[in-house]
């Protein structure tokens, strides 16, 4: 039944994709309706299938002949796949609903058919990625996913910056894909087949280590590990907001899925694997949030936060590998469960934040936070949902982000106190602890800035002052996710049940259930703490209301130390708010300041602007690609466009090969 549901889901999505491309469309030219109906109809059976597998804990597989060398249409749904299917389907369905209203603004100028066709294709290909059990099928699904998301990024291809972002994304996606091809060719050459369950890795550690590094590079490029993250801050802002939510919320998680899946096939992990993921996670997490702080573009900022959260997930996975390889299975289970739980938590709050950013950018006519302000009064529902998402992404209780970070903290503290010998796992725990602590403080600073500058205070432009609330479909998706942020935070022990089967599959299941009992008890305490916070807040709110009734309650202008003519331009902006922190870390971020001050005694205009470009882009990839293009230019002499010359090359090559053979 599970497989049937998955096939129905894929069929509906592919059919929907085709229907959206029909000229005129079946629904009287309204491709949005076709797109959202097939998108949601495709999500429902997939969600049911995932829940069935998570509940029963049994894997289901299907193998069909596929007339391609080494290929077989071999798919399976096990708890790990089911967990990702659930996450993907949930976010994609809500994004489709959001997209109907969001894309309305483009209806006059654009044919929405391709946008919806590629959206459904992206959804279907992500599902296929997490159920494929054959290397070739996996790579086909992976490439379909990359290409369909590329076309979605290029939605507004008439803008130059969008074309550039799409190009960078295409290059990054294929650099990653190249690593994956090597990975599967190596695996396949040793096992004689490309089916996952037939992969055998010889006990020689070197081969497994190379495969692990290939997986980290290949899947890391999709997930956004530093320094392979450079495509994210370009591609996420360029795509329409519901697509950004899908790409950031779930598509980059297919990289995490692939990494976990391949690691599970490689046998006993070496200790340095764990170290690699912890270091990658710590660097991605801290640098991601630092770069985020320096951004003025709200969607670009959110894209950098994805790098940060992928870093947190990687810290959890690193503790998993470190725990397994050093003989701390209980702590390994905690790390793994924390990492996986953060996958769904991040999917929930990051899609919510991208939805909110889309609504805001739409209403204010810009993505530049510095010219927004006061939007909470104009769009209260969006503000409420975005506020909840902001607190959740900072890992603040009682919201969901805290729960997964808490599990990772527990694993780290377990390693610190229980590992005994310093230098080994204990140092790993300390790095995770310090990184998480720093990330937590920086993220709170960053989202205080986003929420405070965008939604609070006075509007800084006339357009922000006339902003309008988002349409009902967009609000529905945001409110649903906001409710999930609270529910997953308060019902943490139940949320952990989503990742338990997957953890049980990857680790000794007896150990996992023991840990889950322990963690469950702890997480109930967290829940009680959350409920206590809400109850106390409610009590204090009531007390305040009661004390204030019947007294003189007035309103007036902000006091502002008695200044009589406040102006909305005097408020702190996103740049000025973040500046002290950026200044503190300027040796990493290297922001550029442009100051213009008048030289005469009565200067009229003075200006200050700051800009932070990505140092990895600037110092690593730009020189690299310049070198590649220089090399291409040099070899250009060989390519003159004359057919006779090419025939000569062929003849010379054949001759050389012949001589080599004869000799």
């Amino acid at each position, binding site marked *: 039944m599970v497989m049937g549901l998955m096939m129905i889901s894929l069929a509906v999505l592919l059919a929907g994709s085709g229907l959206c491309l029909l000229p005129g469309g079946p629904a009287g030219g309204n491709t949005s309706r076709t797109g959202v109906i097939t998108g949601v109809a495709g999500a429902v059976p997939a969600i049911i299938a995932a829940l069935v597998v998570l509940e029963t804990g049994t894997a289901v597989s299907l193998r069909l002949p596929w007339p391609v060398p080494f290929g077989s249409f071999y798919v399976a749904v096990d708890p790990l796949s089911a967990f990702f299917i659930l996450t993907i389907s949930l976010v994609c369905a809500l994004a489709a609903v959001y997209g109907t209203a969001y894309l309305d603004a483009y209806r006059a100028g654009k044919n929405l058919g391709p946008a919806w066709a590629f959206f459904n294709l992206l959804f279907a290909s992500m599902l296929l990625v997490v159920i494929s059990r054959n290397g070739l099928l996996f790579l086909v699904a992976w490439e379909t996913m990359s290409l369909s998301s590329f076309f979605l990024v290029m939605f507004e291809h008439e803008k130059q910056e969008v074309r550039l972002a799409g190009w960078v994304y295409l290059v990054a996606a294929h650099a990653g894909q190249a690593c994956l091809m090597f990975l599967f060719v190596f695996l396949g050459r040793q096992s004689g087949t490309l089916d996952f369950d037939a992969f055998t890795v010889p006990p020689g550690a070197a081969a497994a280590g190379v495969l692990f590094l290939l997986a980290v590079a290949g899947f890391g490029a999709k997930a956004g590990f530093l320094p392979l993250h450079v495509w994210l801050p370009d591609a996420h802002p360029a795509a329409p907001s519901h697509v950004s939510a899908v790409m950031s919320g779930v598509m980059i998680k297919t990289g995490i899925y692939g990494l976990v899946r391949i690691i599970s096939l490689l046998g006993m992990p070496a200790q340095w694997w764990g170290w690699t993921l912890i270091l990658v996670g710590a660097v991605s997490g801290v640098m991601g949030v630092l770069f985020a702080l320096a951004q003025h573009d709200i969607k670009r900022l959110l894209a950098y936060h994805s790098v940060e959260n992928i870093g947190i997930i990687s810290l959890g996975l690193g503790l998993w590998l470190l725990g397994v390889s050093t003989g701390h299975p209980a702590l390994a289970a905690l790390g793994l469960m924390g990492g996986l739980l953060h996958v769904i938590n991040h999917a929930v709050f990051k899609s919510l934040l991208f939805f909110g950013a889309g609504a805001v950018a739409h209403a204010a006519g810009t993505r530049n936070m510095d010219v927004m302000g006061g939007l*909470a009064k104009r769009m209260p529902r969006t503000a409420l949902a975005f506020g909840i998402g902001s607190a959740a992404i900072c890992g*603040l209780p009682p919201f969901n982000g805290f729960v997964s970070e*808490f599990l990772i903290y527990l694993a780290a503290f377990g390693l610190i106190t229980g590992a005994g010998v310093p230098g080994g796992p204990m140092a790993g725990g300390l790095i995770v602890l310090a990184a998480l602590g720093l990330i937590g403080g920086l993220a709170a600073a960053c989202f205080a800035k986003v929420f405070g500058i965008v939604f609070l205070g006075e509007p800084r432009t006339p357009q922000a002052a006339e902003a309008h609330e988002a349409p009902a479909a967009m609000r529905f998706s945001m409110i649903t996710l906001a409710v999930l942020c609270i529910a997953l935070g308060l019902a943490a022990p139940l949320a952990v049940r989503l990742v338990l089967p997957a953890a049980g599959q990857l680790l000794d299941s007896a150990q996992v259930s023991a840990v889950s009992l322990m963690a469950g008890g702890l997480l109930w305490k967290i829940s009680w703490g959350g409920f206590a*916070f809400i109850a106390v*807040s409610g009590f204090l709110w009531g007390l305040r209301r009661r004390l204030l009734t019947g007294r003189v309650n007035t309103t007036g202008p902000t006091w502002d130390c008695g200044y009589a003519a406040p102006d909305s331009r005097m408020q702190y902006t996103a740049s000025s708010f973040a500046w002290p922190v950026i200044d503190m870390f300027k040796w990493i971020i290297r922001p550029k300041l442009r100051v213009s001050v008048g030289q005469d005694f009565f200067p009229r205009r003075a200006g200050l602007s700051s800009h932070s470009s990505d140092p990895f882009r600037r110092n690593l990839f730009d020189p690299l690609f310049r070198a590649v293009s220089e090399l291409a230019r040099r070899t250009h002499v060989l390519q003159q466009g004359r057919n006779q010359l090419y025939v000569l090359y062929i003849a010379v090559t054949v001759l050389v090969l012949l001589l080599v053979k004869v000799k």
Partner: protein
Amino acid sequence: MTSIINLLLALMLSPLLIGVINRTKAKIAGRRGQPLLQPYHDLVKLMKKGSVYSTTTTRVFRLGPVASLAAVLVAVTMVPSGGMGGVFSFAGDFVFMAYLLGLARFVTVIAALDTGSAFEGMGASREVQFAILAEIVLLLGLAVLAIGTGETSLTGIYGKLWVSAASALGPASLLVAFAFLIILLTENARIPVDDPNTHLELTMIHEVMVLDHGGVDLAFIQYGAALKLWLFAALLTGLAIPFRTGIVSLDMMVNTAGIFAAAILVGFIESGMARLRLLNVPQMLIAALAVTVASLLWILR
């Protein structure tokens, strides 16, 4: 049961800590100073007032003091003192406590930004800047104590401190105590980080963030601030006075006396030095971080 008495002490006596600090400063300056119970009178007076809200503000501004006080109240329940555990204790509870304090800070900061005032924006910006460093010192300090005692809850750590204080942890716990003192001064907006007695200077942090709050809201904020001071003073005292007699009531009295001694110490520090230049505050916090790392190295030696 006794831990509930602990909590009640915190709830009742925390405003007195502020009074003790003020009185200490007055004595050193040669003034008579305000009555010891003045903070209580202030709270009562504020609770009786009506409200004035800026037309710029939204619900966030009204929710800020409520949510931040609630978060601090829940955080205080986890604090052990005088050999007794917190009311609410579990493995990793200090992470929860640190993040609850983070929540309190977050709502205070966004409530400040809600006024649209440049001054409050300045305070908010500085608050988050210093909090980043302070939070790391707090977590690393607790990690050192966790390694030293092998425990992962505040109650467990502080319960074992007096056993292991003489041996393994010894000097490390004093180093952590020093770092915690700096964190106490930072998190509670005391000199040399911030001056609680001035409101209008552009250099202020916490006071400038609550400029537009009045009446009941301001009472909530001041009570929350007093509780937060109690919380940090209790964490510091547990480290600095790791002696137990075994008699619960006596231990409790010693510990409470220690908390008030911490307040007197704060009064001495505030009388003895000036506020640092803002640019130097991060340097002081990084020094605290260095001290914590030193204690970590000691414990791992």
